[in-house]
């Protein structure tokens, strides 16, 4: 039964790919049914009605046994529910959002493939299985970002995403190999990991595995793909680049925490990476004009929080925030998508304005999401962020202050986009003529906004699922600080952008995203490009020309020389003949 989780979306993806592409309605139906089925199965699992099936052996060779199985512990259950739930909603939402796109059958097929891969990651029982689905998630993400492949920017963004992920996966695979070589297994087996304890390889393995997360969860320095990934259709941004896939990195860290915890050094690297990412992304977000990009940087920043939490050894906090963030970020993206849909894909917030009045449902739900993200008390985001700040405060004060400052920034930029996009006067014709989106798009917004409000409360049971609230060591300073930060951010945002019709602050460093893209263009890409050119030159001229054709040339030159012996003159022939005879005599008698 539990195999349905994987098989339903996989079958859907396969069917759509092979046969159903010419029939968009059928494809949509199949795909939505598959995601619904997956959600129901996940529900069944969460309620304990469906158990884990026996594992299948995928590769069984001496020294290496790789299984395809299912882990259905509490961590997986929570994640499954969140992922399948959000995915189902987004499938429904896409019905409306993609209604006019001619390629929507393909879109739904790819969504199904993504869902299957994501579920695969969640239920993995071992490193290799996780790696398999990990990569597949990358592939489906590539396909979905590049869904509008005829747009150059989308095509480039897809490639960038895949490559950045590949770099991370490179480390991940090496980490898996290190783990396997030391522990003798690829299973998620804390018992086996003891082989790593005290070993100098422990931090190496941990950090290599963390590379996977850096790529997938868009941590600095491999984060550059995420903002560009917004070139994909908005439901994709909501599903993959906000709620689920990017969170997979964090989920993976939690899943393999038994390796990470063997090495405090690695943990602190992870924590700092998360903290810095959170801060930098928030700073950048304050200066972006594209609504989806702001959301993307905020996603990155929130992922930084989660990684920070893992680095502070608080997987509970990380998972908590992961879940709530999944809800409200999906909500935000879908809200933004609703706006874009109405504005014919106008993404610049300065070319919107006053949309709130035309699209009340979207406005309200977006507002709830923004508030949750900003950490307004009483909404889910507040609770989960609080946990993380607590964890940071316990571990490293500097990180805590960074995180708090980030919280302020979050409130600031969320205020900024809400005010600029939804309030004020319409700044373009499109904004004036905006209309509320259809109900299929509105319905998921409503559901998610409800979740965004209640998910933080203990009655909702997330923390229960994760094994209880960590009561001990609550720092009273933390809520104070975070509240202050949020308020400061809100106020600053409201003051600055209350009635603004154009940008009031200009910080090029933030606007240009800390010049990461440029730096990469000038270093990594240039280096690769130039070395490729150099080597291609070397291959063509040194190996191909000098060695191969040179060798051939020397041989044919030898031929030409030998040919000159044959000058046609009989006297010379006689001489050579006699010389040969003399040579033979010399050989026979010369010794």
């Amino acid at each position, binding site marked *: 039964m539990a195999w349905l989780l994987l098989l339903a979306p996989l079958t859907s993806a396969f069917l759509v790919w092979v046969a159903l592409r010419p029939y968009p309605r059928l494809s949509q139906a199949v795909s939505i049914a598959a995601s619904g089925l997956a959600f129901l199965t996940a529900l069944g699992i969460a309620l304990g009605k469906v158990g884990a099936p026996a594992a299948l052996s995928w590769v069984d060779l001496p020294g290496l046994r790789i299984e395809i199985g299912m882990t259905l512990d509490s961590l997986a259950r929570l994640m499954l529910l969140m992922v399948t739930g959000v995915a189902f909603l987004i499938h429904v939402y896409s019905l409306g959002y993609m209604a006019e796109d001619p390629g929507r059958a393909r879109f739904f097929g790819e969504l199904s493939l993504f869902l299957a891969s994501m579920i695969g990651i969640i239920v993995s029982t071992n490193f290799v299985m996780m790696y398999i689905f990990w990569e597949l998630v990358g592939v489906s993400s590539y396909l979905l970002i590049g869904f509008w492949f005829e747009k150059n920017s989308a095509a480039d963004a897809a490639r960038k995403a895949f490559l950045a992920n590949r770099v991370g996966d490179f480390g991940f695979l090496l980490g898996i190999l290190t783990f396997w070589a030391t522990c003798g297994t690829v299973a998620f087996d804390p018992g086996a990991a003891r082989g790593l304890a005290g070993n100098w390889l422990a931090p190496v393995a941990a950090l290599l595995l963390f590379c996977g997360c850096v790529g997938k969860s868009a941590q600095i320095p491999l984060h550059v793909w995420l903002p560009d990934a917004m070139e994909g259709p908005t439901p994709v941004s909501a599903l993959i680049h906000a709620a689920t896939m990017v969170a997979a990195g964090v989920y993976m860290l939690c899943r393999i925490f038994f390796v990470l915890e063997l090495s405090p050094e690695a943990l602190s690297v992870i924590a700092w990476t998360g903290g810095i990412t959170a801060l930098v992304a928030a700073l950048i977000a304050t200066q972006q004009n594209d609504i989806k990009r702001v959301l993307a940087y905020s996603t990155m920043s929130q992922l930084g929080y989660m990684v920070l939490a893992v680095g502070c050894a608080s997987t509970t906090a990380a998972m908590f925030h992961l879940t709530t963030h999944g809800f409200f970020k999906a909500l935000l993206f879908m809200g933004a998508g609703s706006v874009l849909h109405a504005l014919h894909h106008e993404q610049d917030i300065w070319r919107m304005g006053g949309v709130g009045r035309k699209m009340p449902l979207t406005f309200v739900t977006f507002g709830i999401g923004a508030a949750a993200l900003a950490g307004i008390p009483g909404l889910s985001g507040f609770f989960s962020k609080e946990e993380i700040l607590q964890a940071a405060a316990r571990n490293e004060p500097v990180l805590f202050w960074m995180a708090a400052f980030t919280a302020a920034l979050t409130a600031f930029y969320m205020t900024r986009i809400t005010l600029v996009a939804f309030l004020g006067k319409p700044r373009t014709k499109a904004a004036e003529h905006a209309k509320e989106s259809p109900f299929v798009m509105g319905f998921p917004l409503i559901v998610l906004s409800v979740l965004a409000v209640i998910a933080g409360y203990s009655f909702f049971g997330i923390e229960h699922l994760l094994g209880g609230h960590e009561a001990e060591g609550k720092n009273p300073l933390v809520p104070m600080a975070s509240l202050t930060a949020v308020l400061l951010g809100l106020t600053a945002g409201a003051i600055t952008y209350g009635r603004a019709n154009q940008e009031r602050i200009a910080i090029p460093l933030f606007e240009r995203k800390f010049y990461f893209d440029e730096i990469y263009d000038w270093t990594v890409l240039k280096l690769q490009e130039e070395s490729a050119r150099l080597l291609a030159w070397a291959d063509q001229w040194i190996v191909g020309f000098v060695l191969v054709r040179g060798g051939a040339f020397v041989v044919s030159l030898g031929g030409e020389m030998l*040919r*000159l012996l*044959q*000058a*046609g*003159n*009989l*006297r010379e022939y*006689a*001489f050579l003949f*006699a010389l040969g005879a003399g040579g033979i005599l010399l050989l026979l008698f010369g010794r």
Partner: protein
Amino acid sequence: MGTPTLGHYLVLSGLLFAIGLAGVIVRRDLLIMYMCLEIMLNAANLSLVAFSRFSHQVRGQVLVFFVITVAAVEVAVGLALLVSLYRMKRTTKAEEITALKF
């Protein structure tokens, strides 16, 4: 001036052979080259007869007989060929019949 031994004859024949060979190499006229080939054959004959004499074997002389005959045959054919060549190219100089080369 003692009695000539086998060694004397062999040296003589060797010298003759070498002179003939040198002649083939240094002369340009095919006809003279051909004469030098005859010298070489004669050198071989001298060796044969000398060996034959000093080992009391007549078989060597039989070979000399054949060599002389064959030499005559070769000369006949060769000279006929040279005549044809001369008719064609108006020369018998080795330097001037080098159309086939390299």
